């Protein structure tokens, strides 16, 4: 390992170099992955943030031009820390892989001409996932000095963060090498797939789950953790995103849910500060309070379910302005303050 600039601070995931971030669609996993990369890059580290679904979500999160096929620096962090971004492309990964392991050169071009590359990357189901995880594997193992070998050599990246497919598909995505290993009983693909699987299942890796305090995303989090466990993938933390600030005190919430807030008192208060206490406004406010109380109750139930999972849990506040590059910095700081990085 490189001299560890961050050793002064203990974080929950010391020793993890590959952070895989998943979550149900709509939970904000891409922005959380971006924030985590930025947080990990604090204290002068070099971090790679990789996306695998061709959405260009990273460039949108950091407000930089769309990522090309090469790793590009997209953000600076404290103490000369750097975040690099990569949109992993299956075709580029395949050609690079063929060149790296088989020194194919012209034969790679022939395969391309025959449509074999297109077949492998777009049509043959699953191969795509093998290539994407393969590229991530390569980035994690890469050395700063490419001639250096052995466990003592400094890695090119201190950490790699993957914006992974959503919960519905992530286990299949991560376990795809295992499937391939079953398929290719011998030969080079088999050993390559085995190495990828070994890394993904090692303590160097953690699969983090992003959720909202809503029933469906929480249910998917619970299901995905069980699924990950059954295939032996190391489970990371749970990040609760878009947590709303608590505005009403417990007493008021309780009164609101029982419809016990005095309409006359509220009307008197409004009138005193020169707001017209029309029926529409009064009914509206009381309805909002009741709906809000109902929502808070549901959120508490969901928070308890997450607590029951017994995983390290982090909470990111809802950003009123929506998420932009500044929002991601705020989220990164919150994650650091909570010990995730």
């Amino acid at each position: 390992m490189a001299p560890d600039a961050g050793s002064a601070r203990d974080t929950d995931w010391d020793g993890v170099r590959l952070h895989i971030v998943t979550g149900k669609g709509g939970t904000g996993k891409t922005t959380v992955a971006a924030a985590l990369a930025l947080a990990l890059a604090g204290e002068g580290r070099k971090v790679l943030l990789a996306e695998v679904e061709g959405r260009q979500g990273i460039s949108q999160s950091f407000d930089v031009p769309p990522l090309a096929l090469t790793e590009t620096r997209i953000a600076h962090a404290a103490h000369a820390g750097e975040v690099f971004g990569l949109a992993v492309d299956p075709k580029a990964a395949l050609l690079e892989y063929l060149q790296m392991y088989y020194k194919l050169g012209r034969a790679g071009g022939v395969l391309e001409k025959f449509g074999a590359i297109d077949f492998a990357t777009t049509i043959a189901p699953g191969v795509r996932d093998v290539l994407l995880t393969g590229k991530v594997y390569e980035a994690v193992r890469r050395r700063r000095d490419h001639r250096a070998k052995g466990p003592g050599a400094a890695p090119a990246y201190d950490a790699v963060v993957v914006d992974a497919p959503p919960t519905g598909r992530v286990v299949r995505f991560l376990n795809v090498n295992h499937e391939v290993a079953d398929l290719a009983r011998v030969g080079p693909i088999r050993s390559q797939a085995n190495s990828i699987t070994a890394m993904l299942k090692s303590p160097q890796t953690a699969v983090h789950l992003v959720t909202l305090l809503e029933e469906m995303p929480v249910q998917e989090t619970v299901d995905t953790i069980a699924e990950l466990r059954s295939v032996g993938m190391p489970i990371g933390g749970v990040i609760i995103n878009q947590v709303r600030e608590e505005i009403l005190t417990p007493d008021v919430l309780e009164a609101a849910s029982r419809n016990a807030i005095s309409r006359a008192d509220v009307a008197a208060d409004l009138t005193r500060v020169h707001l017209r206490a029309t029926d529409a406004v009064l009914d509206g406010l009381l309805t909002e309070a009741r709906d809000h109380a109902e929502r808070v109750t549901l959120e508490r139930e969901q928070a308890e379910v997450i607590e029951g999972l017994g995983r390290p849990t982090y909470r990111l506040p809802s950003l009123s302005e929506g998420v932009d590059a500044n929002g991601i910095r705020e989220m990164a700081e919150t994650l650091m303050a909570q010990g995730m990085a």
Partner: protein
Amino acid sequence: MKVPLLNIDALINDPQTRIIVCCGAGGVGKTTTAAALGLRAAESGRRVVVLTIDPARRLAQSLGLTTLDNTPRPVKDVDDTRGGSLDAMMLDMKRTFDEVVEAHATADKAEQILANPFYQAVSSSFAGTQEYMAMEKLGQLRLEADRNPDHPRWDLIVVDTPPSRSALDFLDAPKRLGSFLDGRFIRLLTAPAKAGGRAYLKVFSAGVNIATKTLTKVLGGQMLSDVQTFVAALDTMFGGFRKRADHTYALLSDRTTTFIVVAAPERDALREASYFVDRLDEEQMPLAGLVVNRMYRVSARGLSAARALGAAEELGDEARDNSSVVTSSGASERTAITQGLLRMHAVQAEIAARHESLAKSFIAGHPDIPMVKVPAASGDIHDLVGLRAVGEALAGH
């Protein structure tokens, strides 16, 4: 700007509408929208089948989908007074694939394919197969619906699209399959097994040798031969396969099909919706409009966030002034309640305004696309009562 309203009732009550495809990014409520549309159509007299791909567990239970058997089953407790009915099914991709093989290959060929390790991996566990099979199942349902033209089993099919990497995968699946079936790569893989291919092969045999050698090197001989056996076996049914894919694609662009793009008031989901709308337009696919789910709405609509906050502050000042003189704690507690309500309203009004402005920016880019906004429910939807309420909201009530 006047935005055309997406008239859901007109759409589902039009007998010309035979297929509704719900598409959009993950997590925007596609499945719920599809189920609610299906239920509303059934209760207004259509004979509906809803094809869901990956429903949340409780939603599935509400539709009676407790077993995954790849067959449409009637949904209980649907109001059938207008002569409609609702069936629902969950896609089983492996089973669908097996059925395709069995339908298109001779019995011994089918057996050979089903036993091939490459086929087993492709059909059951790999991502990507879902899109093909969703399309295949749609085609099958349509055939089944039309089997008896006088008494069609269903007169409306509502499809929920797979949670793809991109919403566009669903649309591209049949074309990709087609281009593969026509491709040189297939000929490369099947040629050595076919005597008739030899003469043709001489023309580019040098290339073939390099390609085959490379494949052997990369895949290993055993895997390559599994793949070749698989492709050769499939070869006999390619014609049928291809025809089916083309047919389904044609079905999608047919006048009796309509697409509903589903989104949530979030930047990413609306961006995806925007891509999809443009893409459907390019392909001249029939788009009915956009459903924006989970729109936040306040109940006290006449009160702006700024005024509510101002009033809350004024009440706060007043409480501080009073506390320096005499305190009647009951009064200040009551005022604290009102302050809380006003602050809460301000936060919610801001969220609602943000959602409206996101919807507006979509409209600015697509002024002609009919739209309907569905308000956020305070809880999750997992029964017919909830789905009915969503149906009402979809219809703009």
